[in-house]
């Protein structure tokens, strides 16, 4: 992979992020009412002094373009403003919560791809078999279930009937002082239900997609060659075929990342997972705009990074693309 390609890709990503910053700025100005009051959180409790300091910090008495410049320059230096509700810098609020969100989203993504591809490959072996029928029905159901409702149903199921998984939060309070491996195991234990809830929707889609993609690949000449030379069925399916069928799955995985973050927002709210989604929900209820804008910025940044990683892995998976820019 050429480094100039990577450089261009990152540069474009930064440009998109600049767009998000400008959008944030515009949204605050488009909101009805005095921007200073909007930024203070419309709590009615903001004193004139507070409003004056906001006007000073954001340069609200200056021309709009100067205001934009102040805002963009601030964000570039890592200053996302102050949350008047949490009484903390927004950057700190997000830094505390971005880890749990990444953990949840990445786990759900890996879970859904692994299980989905496995189901899809099984289904592709017999296109008219029971497994194929199951995959299509499951995919349609998975698409139609509201993710927050799945979470609630799982909580009801596991809280009383099968209390084997914790249904709330990320850590047990009583394990605060335990050894690190006990704590890690505890977090993973808490992670199972939320990650599975989030994975269900996409799991079904990956299963359907990999079934279709595998069926196409299994009809090709090199698979017939592999079978003819006597390669075991397992190696034909998982080595020869899957590697070629994986490309469309990778594309969709990249495109899905934004949706996954939207889903995480609901799942975090249901399971009280201490991530950015939960923070977004709390700050939206309080109309704490600096925090909301900060979350929007970082959530978009996560999508941009995911897209770049998808591009890189795509080139890694498909040798035909290497060297091209």
């Amino acid at each position, binding site marked *: 992979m050429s480094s100039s390609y990577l450089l261009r890709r990152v540069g474009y990503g930064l440009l998109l992020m600049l767009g998000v910053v400008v959008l944030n700025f515009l*949204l605050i100005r488009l909101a009805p009412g005095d921007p200073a009051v909007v930024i203070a959180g419309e709590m009615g409790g903001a004193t004139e002094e507070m409003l004056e300091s906001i006007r000073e910090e954001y340069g609200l008495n200056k021309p709009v373009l100067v205001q934009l410049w102040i805002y963009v320059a601030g964000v570039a230096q890592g200053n996302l403003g102050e949350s008047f509700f949490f009484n903390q810098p927004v950057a700190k609020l997000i830094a505390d919560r971005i880890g749990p969100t990444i953990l949840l989203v990445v786990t759900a993504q890996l879970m859904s791809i692994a299980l989905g591809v496995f189901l899809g490959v099984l289904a592709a072996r017999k296109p008219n078999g029971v497994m194929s029928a199951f995959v299509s029905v499951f995919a*349609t159901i998975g698409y139609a279930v*509201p993710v927050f409702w799945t979470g609630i149903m799982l909580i*009801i199921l596991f809280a009383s009937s099968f209390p084997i998984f914790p249904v709330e939060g990320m850590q047990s309070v009583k394990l605060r002082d335990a050894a690190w491996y006990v704590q890690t195991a505890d977090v993973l234990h808490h992670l199972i239900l939320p990650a599975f809830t989030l994975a269900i929707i996409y799991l079904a889609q990956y299963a359907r997609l990999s079934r279709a993609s595998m069926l196409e690949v299994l009809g090709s000449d090199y698979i017939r060659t592999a079978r003819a030379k006597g390669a075991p069925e397992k190696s034909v399916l998982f080595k020869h075929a899957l590697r070629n069928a994986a490309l469309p799955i990778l594309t969709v995985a990249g495109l899905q990342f*934004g949706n996954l973050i*939207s889903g995480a927002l*609901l799942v975090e709210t249901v399971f009280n997972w201490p991530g950015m989604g939960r923070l977004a929900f709390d700050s939206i209820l309080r109309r704490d705009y600096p925090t909301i804008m900060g979350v929007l910025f970082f959530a978009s940044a996560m999508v941009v990074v995911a897209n770049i990683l998808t591009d890189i892995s795509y080139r890694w998976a498909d040798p035909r693309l290497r060297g091209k820019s």
Partner: protein
Amino acid sequence: MTDTPDYKAESPALEAWRMFRRNIPALCGVAMLTVIVLATLYGTFFYSGDPFDVVWAPHEPPGATPEFPLGTDYLGRNIVAGMLTGGGPTLAVGAAAAAITMVIGISLGALAGYYGGWVDNLLMRITEFFQVLPALLFAMVLVTLFSPSLWTIAIAIGVVSWPQTARLTRAEFLKIKELEYVTAARAIGARNKRIIWKVILPNAMPPLIVSATLTIGVAILFEAGLSFLGLGDPNVMSWGLMIGANREYILDAWWPVTFPGLAIFFTVFAVSLIGDGLNDAFNPKLRER
């Protein structure tokens, strides 16, 4: 010279309809959706009552009192009343949001695909920008900034969901604009506007219709998610709001959250069965798979 046989080619729409008619899951979807729409439109006719009224003791289990077949919620509100009136806003917002999505997506996608060059470049960069914003979060921000009503919610959902439609439309236009009948239309002097809307668009419709159906499903889930978070119109009962309002008490009573969730599920399920059926009907080749 022999007489040409009196044979009329079947129109593509008729052929698709013939295929659709034989698709049992899709017909089940149509039946389910019809029942749901009729229930939300005329249900209150049989079962009147404000869904916000407290009518009984809280958390009455379903079936315990004949007047409240699905029980009552944490305030003692009738769940059947909520189910019947709560579907209307969800379906209306879903349909309106899907319409807005299609209008924005088709317009931008058609312009980008047809004109190409810098128009395409500019519009695709805008599309990519919107795809970077996590849709639900952006919709939440829009709804909060511009106070929630059914219209702002529908517009917010439309504004965040159009990029996929735009990409699909663009791809179709890129494919179709090279075909001979488009060249023929240009040769007889048709203007760009006419070629876009009257020549290419009708031929690009089949995949767009399928995508519109799926968009309705996604928009319904979106509306449900926003109402669940309490960002819907607080004065309008909706299925998502019922789940959101009762979620603190799920361990005391399972029914106030279960029934509205099932309603959302069956609605979206019906819509996606119809979408799959349309997809098969328009692409007979895919039926072999």
